[in-house]
């Protein structure tokens, strides 16, 4: 299904450059379609409006940080009892400093909160979003927590995030040692 769908997207949205990623074991894993970052709005518009493969609802937007690039996954679905369809649509963001892609709020209103969450957690800005603010963390929070290189800030609003007297430092020696052993083993293996 993904192969035909990606062909369909390529035929109808010029420059979308849809590539279907098919898993070897469809029972265990999900396949997905990756499209060009700049064309996400058009692709989503096409998938929503076209007659044959209409997806009428955006179920979820999820971000994944692969350290060298970030991915935004759009889970599209169809509330149609006769034919249930699910699709994972992906775009890649390589710029970590000024990450920005187009918002799809124009097509799916549910993207309003979901995109704000992706912005909050990964720092990917969504152009043309009506209300691009942080949603879970406070407005003056530093950094984007779910990035792999995130380091939590020391204090917020006069409160220490990791106070030393609560961290059981003297007791944790064991765990620190275990981590060191693990690290040494990993280095040896390399």
């Amino acid at each position, binding site marked *: 299904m993904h192969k035909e769908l990606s062909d369909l997207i390529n035929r109808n949205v010029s420059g979308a450059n849809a590539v279907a990623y098919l898993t070897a074991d469809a029972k265990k894993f999900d396949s997905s379609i990756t499209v060009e970052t700049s064309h996400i709005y058009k692709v989503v518009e096409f998938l929503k409006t076209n007659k044959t493969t209409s997806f009428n609802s955006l179920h979820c937007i999820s971000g994944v940080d692969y350290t060298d690039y970030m991915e935004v996954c759009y889970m599209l679905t169809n509330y149609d009892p006769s034919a249930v369809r699910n699709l994972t649509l992906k775009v890649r963001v390589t710029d970590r400093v000024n990450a920005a892609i187009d918002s799809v709020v124009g097509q799916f209103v549910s993207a309003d909160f979901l995109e704000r969450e992706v912005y909050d957690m990964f720092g990917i800005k969504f152009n043309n979003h009506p209300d691009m603010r942080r949603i879970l963390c406070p407005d003056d929070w530093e950094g984007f927590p779910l990035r792999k290189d995130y380091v939590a800030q020391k204090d917020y609003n006069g409160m220490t995030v990791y106070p030393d007297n609560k961290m*059981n430092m003297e*007791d944790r*020696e*064991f*765990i620190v040692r*275990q981590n060191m052993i693990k690290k040494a083993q990993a280095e040896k293996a390399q």
Partner: protein
Amino acid sequence: MNTQVHHTSSVKEYFGGLWDGIYSSLKGMWITFRYVWAVAPVSIEYPEVREVLPERARMRLFNDALNCISCTQCAMACPVDCIYIASEKLPEGSEIKKTSNGQAIRLHLTQFTIDTALCCYCGLCTTVCPTECLTHSHDYEFSAYTIDSMKYDYLAPDIVAWRDRIVKA
């Protein structure tokens, strides 16, 4: 999009609605009133009467240090890292003790601390324990005035009294 629907009602509708309101409220009150005699009291008068906890109930953790072989599996399994264990090698030639289920204790346990204020009572640590020395006891009444008193050292001398109660021979 004003959802309030205003419409003029006839006299019949008005009194019908009034009657409906009174009747349905009385019905609800009757159900509540029946609780006076028809339903047995459900309250448990706690400090005097205590509910018997089920066998599997997971309350405060207890470690029987005499049976512990310092394998640290509980500390590894703990999702919140609240178990802290340290051990040393036994000096050469010392007698190797056995646990109650026959495993040899080859390490000398020097620290076994559980920060109960962090524990999430998930029970993952007790399932991996090979000698079943780490168990969930049935005590839940141990609120404290200070946070530091919630860190339990299971090698402390005053734990013996507690052990006598929990570990059944």
